């Protein structure tokens, strides 16, 4: 079971947390939570649905932890590396955007969406889940899933438009 689903777990964690840091530990946490939860698992949902839920929860916890850490980053801390995150510290504004940079811009924009929008987008596009499956995993009505997907994509495009200059001058 671990081998069968580890790809999904790793990919989803990478995309939802926006980082590859500690992804292995997080994936391990997912499977341990699944194992612990199996005692109370009553079989009224599919095991994969249960695994998806746990993966989203672990990603969400990590995302919140990182955001909290970032908000505590001090500008006086020489190890914080905050200057790297500021736009416009170098590079040529006229340079052509490479596909890698565009992808980085998209990942950044994805990180600015709400948690549920990000989850719906990743499950629909990356993992090719149906609306019905997503609704089951997130315990949401079908129409709400559709709305989140539509709104999320719209906001993503808006962010990409807004972030054009920033993407072009940061490397």
């Amino acid at each position: 079971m671990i081998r069968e689903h580890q790809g999904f777990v790793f990919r989803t964690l990478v995309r939802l947390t926006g980082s590859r840091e500690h992804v292995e530990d997080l994936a391990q946490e997912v499977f341990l939570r699944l194992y612990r939860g199996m005692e109370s698992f009553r079989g009224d949902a599919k095991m994969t649905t249960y695994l998806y839920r746990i993966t989203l929860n672990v990603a969400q916890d990590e995302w919140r932890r990182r955001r909290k850490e970032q908000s505590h980053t001090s500008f006086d801390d020489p190890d914080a590396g905050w200057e790297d995150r500021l736009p416009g510290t170098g590079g040529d504004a006229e340079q052509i955007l490479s596909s890698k940079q565009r992808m980085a811009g998209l990942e950044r924009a994805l990180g600015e969406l709400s948690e549920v929008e990000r989850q719906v987008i990743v499950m629909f596009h990356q993992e090719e889940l149906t609306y019905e499956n997503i609704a089951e995993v997130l315990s949401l009505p079908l129409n709400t899933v559709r709305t989140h997907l539509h709104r999320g994509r719209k906001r993503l495009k808006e962010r990409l438009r807004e972030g054009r200059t920033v993407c072009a001058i940061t490397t």
Partner: protein
Amino acid sequence: MRDHDINDHGVNCEELHRAVREGRELSRDQSEHMEDCESCLDVFVTLALDAKPEVEIPADFAARVAAELPARQEKQIAVHTPRHWGLISAMAVALVVLVVCFLGPKPANSWVGQVFVMLVASEIAGLALWLGPRWLGR
């Protein structure tokens, strides 16, 4: 619709879609155009989101997780063990009540007293039997 048009930037949407699909570098005009053109931006966003991020999964990941599981299970059992004491104490209380009933002073030794104490003792024993498995399974 701006699809397939050659627009203000002199960019052909169809050509841009192809470039995005093939992951080619875009010119500055194409990049600028993409921000303004709903259809081109949509193609980029869809393709980018559909792409699965490449991840490196250690070959022994599944084995390592599996090895971690029994260790955790043993720890859980060790934590549950002291909960036997709840069941044992309830049974002991029931036994004491029964002993008092048969060997105790006169009021408890009368048949009314015996019936009353037997009822109390059965209730305590019942409670112990009912709560025991719950405590053990927690």
